């Protein structure tokens, strides 16, 4: 319950942060139409938004959000909710597939390194992961665009090295634990050792990492979708940033923050179910 309250509080705080960004941005309340030289001071005054007090601005912003009114995009001229609803499925698909691929590669790579303790294999897989880690997400996006592979493998290439490094170190640490050494000495099969003595005790950390990987994948989706021409939330955020469409950008940031906070909350709750003694 305490954690649920913390979750709601974090989202409300993120709302305040978003509202502050809007309220204190240079040019707040100014309409571009004011630049029309034919307009006199009276017409400009009528165009300008009435200067709300700070508290009523916050209250209005958060109440509208709670009602589901996400405002109107200044660059697209459409309701933000409509734009987001159109593009969410694209991002969900690319981020979902990207995460799935990244996890498959990371778990396979880490398991191989642990099962076959060869320095050469470890070096090869670690070097491959390390080289992906040194490439900007935008360059990876261009590479996968050139290969006509789409945004999902590019997202996987960004997330995989981070997952691999953590899971590898975690499993390597578990491999040296006395009960695992004893199990191996007793002749337990490799697959049984991996599943029951390495992966099972590491499950809470791996589940927590799954929650964090959502944040990494969403972060990677902006440059990747922008460059791959994938009409998702990332591309929408990029075009909004280039057009200084703050209402849309702030709502997107809030939604993404809510999604990552919720993912972390769910992962945390699942990890606690796996290891209640750590709760």
């Amino acid at each position, binding site marked *: 319950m305490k954690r649920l309250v913390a979750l709601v509080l974090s989202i409300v705080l993120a709302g305040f942060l978003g509202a502050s960004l809007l309220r204190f941005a240079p040019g707040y309340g100014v309409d571009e139409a004011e630049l029309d030289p034919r307009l006199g001071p009276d017409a400009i005054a009528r165009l300008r938004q009435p200067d709300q007090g700070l508290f009523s601005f916050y209250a209005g912003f958060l109440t509208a959000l709670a009602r589901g009114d996400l405002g109107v995009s200044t660059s697209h001229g459409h309701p933000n909710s409509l734009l987001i609803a159109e593009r969410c499925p694209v991002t969900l698909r690319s981020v979902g597939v990207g995460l799935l691929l990244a996890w498959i590669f990371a778990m396979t790579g880490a398991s191989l390194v642990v099962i076959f303790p060869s*320095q050469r294999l470890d070096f090869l897989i*670690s070097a491959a992961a*390390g080289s992906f880690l*040194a490439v*900007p997400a935008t360059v990876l996006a261009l590479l996968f665009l050139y290969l006509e592979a789409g945004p999902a493998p590019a997202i996987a290439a960004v997330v995989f090295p981070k997952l691999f490094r953590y899971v590898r170190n975690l499993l390597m640490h578990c491999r040296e634990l006395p009960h695992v050494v004893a199990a191996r000495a007793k002749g337990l099969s490799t697959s049984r050792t991996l599943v029951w003595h390495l992966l099972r005790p590491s499950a809470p950390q791996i589940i927590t990492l799954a929650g964090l990987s959502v944040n990494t994948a969403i972060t990677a989706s902006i440059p990747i979708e922008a460059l791959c021409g994938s009409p998702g939330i990332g591309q929408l955020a990029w075009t909004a940033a280039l057009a200084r469409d703050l209402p849309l*950008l702030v709502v997107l*940031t809030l939604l993404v*923050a809510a999604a990552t906070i919720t993912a972390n909350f769910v992962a945390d709750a699942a990890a606690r179910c796996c290891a209640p003694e750590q709760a």
Partner: protein
Amino acid sequence: MTKARRIAAIALLLLTGASLFAGWIARHPYQKQYREAIASPPAAGFPLGTDELGRDRFSRLLHGMRISLLLAPAAALLSTTLAALLGLTAGFLGGWWDRAVTGATDLFLSLPWFFLIITVRALLPLNVAPETSVLITFGLLGLLGWASPARVIRSAVRSLERSDFLLRARAAGSSNPRLLFIHLLPNLAPVLMAQFWIAVPLFLLSEADLGLLGLGVVEPLPSLGNLLRELANFSAVAGNPWMLAPAAAVMTFVGGLHFLLAPRSGAGT
């Protein structure tokens, strides 16, 4: 130092040295256009050819590296200083300040890094002078990158709080500022250094992403980020592999740093 680490260190030194002495090494000014040599292949005067505006790619690469390689550590220094200030005081003072800093840290960490960067970048004017764009880009990275190191520094302070030397100093009547700056801060030096060196490659990569998306350093000033924009022209890159030089420079620098900073037992990641 192993052979591989030595190679990484030499590569980093060469890149940094070349960027620092860009003015001496490059034969042409980075902004000068040679209209008789538009998009020309490598030649004696132009080791990496010229871009579509007829500017020397080699000179732009060296000057771009100088901007990125000097300002990414400057931004990392800013973020580490901010993090040290917040983490140190939160861990040491505890109470409502600790809760406030921890809450702010959690909130910042829950916001995806790149979303936050482009949102705050969009708040500021996009059509600015090149020098201003450099300050905005690296200033933002420095100001927004404090959360993760602040959390680590706070935890380090909390663990040092229970140490014998601090207990003795407190019992001897040391004042709070003395405890903070004479006893705690020097013992946090390794943590601060680690956080600084973790931030440098992160900021280099973020600048590269911002630059390629047109939200970073503005032309004609070169940076590793905006030099990468040429890569979007696939047909040109396919026949001119030297256009990959900025990407190779970023990879060498970031990869080299990761390699040098990795624990000795690691295999290079």
